[in-house]
């Protein structure tokens, strides 16, 4: 679904991604770990196509199509969606209106969608105006539900969220990634799920989100390099015990390998 080949990205004079190779399959959920400043957010921003992230080498393929130089809105229309960590406030733009616009002409009921993230009281509010951490996450999920992307980029779904909200957000993210299935009795779930599953690339610091979703693979991004591919829970445990120090060893090793657990 998403294939990144030797991607190099600079912000101004500074190279933030130094040759990233990554392949995420249809329906797969991939977790990206890494310390602050390692380039995680830059990778997401580059995949979405934000200005200021200059691709100096390599390419990004989405469903076989080269999107490296494609404008952001075309990527969105192809099916890439992003949950923002610090979205801007847009005065006078009601949440309800934006939800409708996210659907791009498809029939959506903002009330019903908002009900799923406990957000109906915010539909008449200006988007992101005075929203708390948890409210921002719910608002982002609401927009994504209307947008229905086939590939979602989540930048720290747990940041600034209290426990109660975390549970709600975790469940909704899971539903989004697994595909929302109302299976008629007697029908087989498997083929339906395969059809509806959404791929995801999720950045996490704390790993809380792993309690809620079925993450398939994970990797650590360190100083602009990807390393240490393993099962996400194993990576998390390893980081909890040893920090990111080990990553340096991995990177310095002649052949970057698995974490030895």
């Amino acid at each position, binding site marked *: 679904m998403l294939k990144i080949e030797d991607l190099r990205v600079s912000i101004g004079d500074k190279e933030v991604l130094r040759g990233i190779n990554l392949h995420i399959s249809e329906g797969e959920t991939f977790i990206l770990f890494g310390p602050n400043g390692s380039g995680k957010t830059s990778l997401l921003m580059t995949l979405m196509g934000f200005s200021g992230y200059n691709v100096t080498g390599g390419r990004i393929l989405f469903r076989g199509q080269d999107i490296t130089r494609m404008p952001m809105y075309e990527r969105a229309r192809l099916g890439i969606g992003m949950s923002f960590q610090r979205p801007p406030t847009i005065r*006078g733009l009601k949440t309800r209106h934006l939800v409708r616009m996210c659907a791009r002409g498809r029939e959506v009921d903002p009330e019903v969608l908002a009900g799923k993230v406990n957000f109906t009281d915010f539909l008449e509010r200006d988007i992101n105006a005075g929203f708390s951490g948890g409210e921002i996450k719910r608002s982002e999920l609401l927009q994504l539900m209307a947008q229905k992307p086939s590939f979602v980029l989540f930048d720290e779904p747990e940041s600034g969220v209290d426990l109660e909200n975390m549970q709600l957000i975790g469940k909704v993210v899971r539903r989004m990634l697994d595909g929302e299935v109302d299976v008629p009795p007697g029908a087989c779930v498997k083929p339906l799920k395969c059809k509806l599953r959404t791929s995801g690339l999720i950045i996490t610091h704390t790993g809380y989100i792993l309690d809620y979703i079925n993450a398939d693979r994970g990797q650590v991004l360190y100083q602009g390099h990807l390393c240490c591919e393993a099962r996400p829970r194993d990576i998390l445990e390893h980081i909890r015990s040893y920090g990111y120090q080990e990553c340096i060893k991995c990177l310095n090793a002649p052949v970057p390998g698995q974490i030895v657990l």
Partner: protein
Amino acid sequence: MKDVKLSDYTFSGIEHGEITDLRTLDAHDKNRILYAGVDLDAGDGSALFMHMDQSTVHCETRDPGLELLDIKVAMKRYDGLPEYAWKLVDRDKDEFTRTVADNTHGGYFIRTKPGVKISKPVQSCLFLKADGAGQNVHNIVIVEEGSEVHIMTGCSTAHGGTHAAHLGITEYYVKKGGKLTFTMIHNWGENASVRPRSVGVVEEGGVFQSNYVLLNAVGTLQMYPAIHLNGRGGIARFNSVIVTPEGSNVDCGNRVIMNAPDTRCEIISRAITTGGVNIARGHIAGNAAPCRGHLECKGLILGGGQMLAVPELDVSVEGGDLSHEAAVGKIAQDEIEYLMARGMDEAEATSTIVRGFLNVDIMGLEGPLAKAIQEQVEKIDANAM
């Protein structure tokens, strides 16, 4: 600010007879007036008034709680309205007030009955049809104790190119516990010169709410309506939306003087210039405690033009609490990209942000008028891109 040379205009002899049914106006004129906020075909207000060039051509009341007269008739009937006429606006303030005082062509006199809430808006239309016409209008609005009314005034020229001058005096009296909502939409043109002079007084517990919309070019417009909150608990709110395309010269502000305790006011203006000049003024004075006021002036420069924001706060007593916020800039790139990440192209994203910025929704305009405004806003985007 561009001067207005009154000698360039004809201030007499451009008169019209009564028009009993305003739906019979030609379609083009009606459309211009629609863009100034008055839907003559619907004609569903509590009262309907129209002044064309130098004559009042229509004056009709449909609500028994309301009195609507041509100002000249009212002056005759009420012995010159000694308590109200030229009491708030000084007839010698400038050459424009003097011109109107010396030769009033018409205008509306609106008075509610005490305690009556008028449910439908009063619709009024001031229209300049003849090239070279100078129009002298004097309006008086009296909201009696405990009553409420909404006046929608649309001011328009017949064509975008009509060369004409509008001089308009308006005096508002909101008595104890009364509420006046005054929505004014201007639809002039590059050759129009406009000089309104408006002052109002609000008594105890009264509310004055003004909405002002100017989305099209105007050669030169200068106004600074002022409201005096003279009774305890009075409230004044001004919302303005002003767009200045190339060729526009606008110097426009709102002033509130709080002379009684527990008064409050809010002046909010949103302005976009796409090549014209806009001076956005605001002045709040706090002369009694406690009183509270906020002035907010936000401007966007899209493509070109100039904006000068002049917010003023003047507190003469301890316990006066005034604030202001002014910002002039361009559309933030992060806002555009946020919307582009949702699938909108740059033009869609820009127009969505501009619509939100102008925030015309808060004025509660509905039906064809809302649609007309929407079209105007979309035109701004098209011009700005």
